[in-house]
């Protein structure tokens, strides 16, 4: 099997912090995040010859990481349950006041709200807003059409808003 080039390895290593961050928010446990990242790099180096130069290496690494997560961890991880209100369809017609005020919401509240989202929604939101990946790249990573990426993103943000509102009331 061909060895990865030095350039490939060095470029892959520049994404270590980003991948670890994502892994930690997926697994929610540091030891699992460590293992997940190591497994991701093992696979990336092993399959480096399959990477198409000119495409986005970061997106490719995210794809390997998420697939590895689904294979090894998801079965063992308690999946958050969708609330009834999460399943409502259509435009969110709530009053503008429902939009959370970033000045009031703490990072801890936001992390908690994110951790309560089902993985499919959490991943889309993190990849889109935190990592700034293009919609087609997210579709590739999650293996879903762009339309589904957009609807999950919309619903994920709505779930976050509602959870943040619940914390305020609580």
């Amino acid at each position, binding site marked *: 099997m061909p060895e990865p080039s030095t350039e490939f390895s060095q470029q892959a290593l520049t994404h270590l912090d980003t991948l670890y961050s994502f892994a930690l928010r997926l697994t929610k446990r540091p030891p699992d995040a460590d293992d997940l990242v190591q*497994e991701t790099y093992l696979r990336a180096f092993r399959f480096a010859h399959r990477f198409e130069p000119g495409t986005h290496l970061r997106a490719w690494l995210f794809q390997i990481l998420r697939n590895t997560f689904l294979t090894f961890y998801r079965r063992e991880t308690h999946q958050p349950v969708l609330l009834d209100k999460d399943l409502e369809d259509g435009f969110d017609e709530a009053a503008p006041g429902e939009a959370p005020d970033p000045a009031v919401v703490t990072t801890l509240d936001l992390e908690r709200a994110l951790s309560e989202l089902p993985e499919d929604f959490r991943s889309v939101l993190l990849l889109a807003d935190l990592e700034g990946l293009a919609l087609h790249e997210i579709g590739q990573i999650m293996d879903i059409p762009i339309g589904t990426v957009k609807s999950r993103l919309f619903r994920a943000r709505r779930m976050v808003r509602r959870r943040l509102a619940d914390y305020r009331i609580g």
Partner: protein
Amino acid sequence: MDCHQAREIFEEHRRRELDPARAAAVDAHLAECPACRAAWAREEAVSTMVRGLPHLPAPPVLVRQVRALCVRRRGIASWLGRPWVAAAVAAVVVAAVLAPWLRRPAERPGDIVDALIQSGVAEHRRILLELEAGAIVVGDPDTLFARVRSVSDVELPKILAGTGELRLLAAKPTLLVSRKTAAAALRYPTSPVTTYFILPGKDLPMPSEGRVQIEQYKPHMRQVNGFNVVYWKQQDLVYIMVSGLDREGCQKLYLKMRKAL
């Protein structure tokens, strides 16, 4: 552009993926539609907060482990990339052809063995965490082993159900480098846990490096992340033993198992 059309492409607009004409059309709609402006603002508020989340740096130990992984994989390849090394290698190859009495250099253990061992150690650590959390309940070994076999296609030998003071703590099907594997964790009272991984190994190599003579056997042995690892082949199966025991204890346990298998 109506509300539905505008909201359909809000996300592309937010990410600047629209061409200038369509972006201008969305802006024009937003300027004249308070409901869509409010919807845009609600989305934008969450998006802004998530964008502001910190990236959590990888722990130094993990950075070292991943870098080591990278160096180990490309070690020989990068040396071969240097012209003088390539020339030297070519000379050695020619000499080997011309002088067949020269001994061939030791064969490098396959990368797949490295990957399996790393994966086994990671799985062993997961099992330790699960045991610590009380997340594993061992019932009747026969039933458990049958369930493991039905998923992994690998039969766990009876000896792994425990003997005397050696007690079975967990048995499960798992994957090592995408290969179906059966795993069983055991320990003596007050001793560290040892996990055995068994997988079909007809196509897997036996590394010539790192071999240790233990009585009549010569398994591959190494230390990974503080655990002693023993790798051997027996019939068509590969066995990987990952243990918190010290080297001597690990060798004794290996011998006990090897003889019983």
